[in-house]
């Protein structure tokens, strides 16, 4: 079976590995790197539970091959917390009760992180549009929107520190 060497940075750490071309990025993240915070919900590109940031953009990692990420940079939910300190988005989900079962939460948070990097002060409509590819079966989205608003507020108040964390290296 053909294997291809790839080199990529995940949550600031550099990896060099060989993968089969058909290996999906989500399987690489979960099964090779053992970063199981990234979830598989539908496996059919519909739910967004597998969302990670690939070179800063949120994408569905069940619909990317790991080889495509060669030379690139990934940020997964494990990369949000720094030195025991939650990312403002994580804090927002905690404070505003932005989750129930938590299955959609890692993907939802990655989309929120990307949104706030681009748009530090999104309207409710902009938040709802941004998360429209991330499905939640529990919350009804109201508290998810509040959680993201909380994070936006926190990040604007503490610009330098939060911006540094959000860069994700």
């Amino acid at each position, binding site marked *: *079976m*053909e294997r*291809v060497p790839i080199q990529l940075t995940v949550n600031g750490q550099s990896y060099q590995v060989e993968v*089969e*071309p*058909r290996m*999906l990025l989500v399987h690489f993240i979960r099964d090779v790197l053992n970063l199981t915070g990234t979830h598989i919900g539908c*496996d*059919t*590109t*519909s739910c*967004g539970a597998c*969302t990670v940031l690939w070179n800063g*953009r*949120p*994408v*569905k990692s069940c*619909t*990317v*091959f790991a*080889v*495509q990420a*060669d030379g690139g940079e990934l940020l997964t939910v494990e990369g949000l917390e720094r030195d025991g300190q939650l990312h403002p988005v994580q804090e927002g989900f905690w404070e505003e009760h932005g989750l129930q079962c938590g299955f959609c939460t890692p993907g939802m948070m990655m*989309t929120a992180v990307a949104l706030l990097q681009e748009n530090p002060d999104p309207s409710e409509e902009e938040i709802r*549009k*941004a998360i*429209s*590819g*991330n499905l939640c079966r529990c919350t009804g989205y109201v508290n998810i929107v509040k959680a993201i608003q909380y994070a936006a507020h926190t990040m604007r108040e503490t610009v330098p520190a939060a911006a540094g964390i959000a860069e994700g290296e």
Partner: protein
Amino acid sequence: MIPAPFSYRRAASIEEAIALLQQYGGDAKILSGGQSLIPMMKFRLAEPAVIVDINGVPGLDTIEEHNGLLAIGGLVRETTLERSPLIRQQYPIIADTAEVIADPLVRNLATVGGNLAHGDPANDHPATMLALRAEVVARGPSGERVIPIDEFFVDTFTTALAPDEILTEIRVPAPPPHCGGAYMKFERKVGDYAVAAAAAFLALDEAGKIARAGIGLTNVYHKPLRAEAAERALLGQAPSDELFRAAAELAAQAADPTSDLRGPAEYKRAVARTMTLRALQKALSRARAA
């Protein structure tokens, strides 16, 4: 779901990509955004032996206006398109279309070239490009050719592209004076393909009569459909609600949808009629504001 094994080749130039396609013939598939191809491979509806990744090919991701044409590179992502100030201001029908495709996560990867090359009548760009009378630029072993959009869509998942050709650019005629276009899509939920959708493009003459008309329909035929009879009915006429209703009826008659989970054929035909009417109304209001 795991796709069947394949070999992966990353092309660094268009020439290299074409050479790889020639070398592997029909066994190879181009990978752009992968948002249609990878799902099909996971379902094993596609089992290409070789994947030629063109994402590293430079120069295919620009949006430019020159010589009276808008040129959209084949690798332009939907997100880039929907946010482009040029597209939003000068070609709002294209922005309308891009922003209702799939969801924001899919749109971060999905490309315009892939959307057309896939040949899926459920995809949204084809109807808009039919209404705009776009042209598709293809590069192959013997050079470049320009394919009028009317000749591009052959059948479901079949286009005029040869297996060793790459869609490099979509060309749209620059907007004439007093023109407007709009895309109207009816979907069950965000991220779904259209129950039915319509693209309408109108240009008015100095007297306010319709000098150019384009209507394209999504997901109501075995391929993307241009509603020619409806277009003819509009030409030379003064716009009116009655005229638009008659044209929308002709568009609905041209549709031949199939019954499925998105609804029975008659319902989809009715949705096509309503979407055509609304697209015409919005196109007219944009043409008058232009």
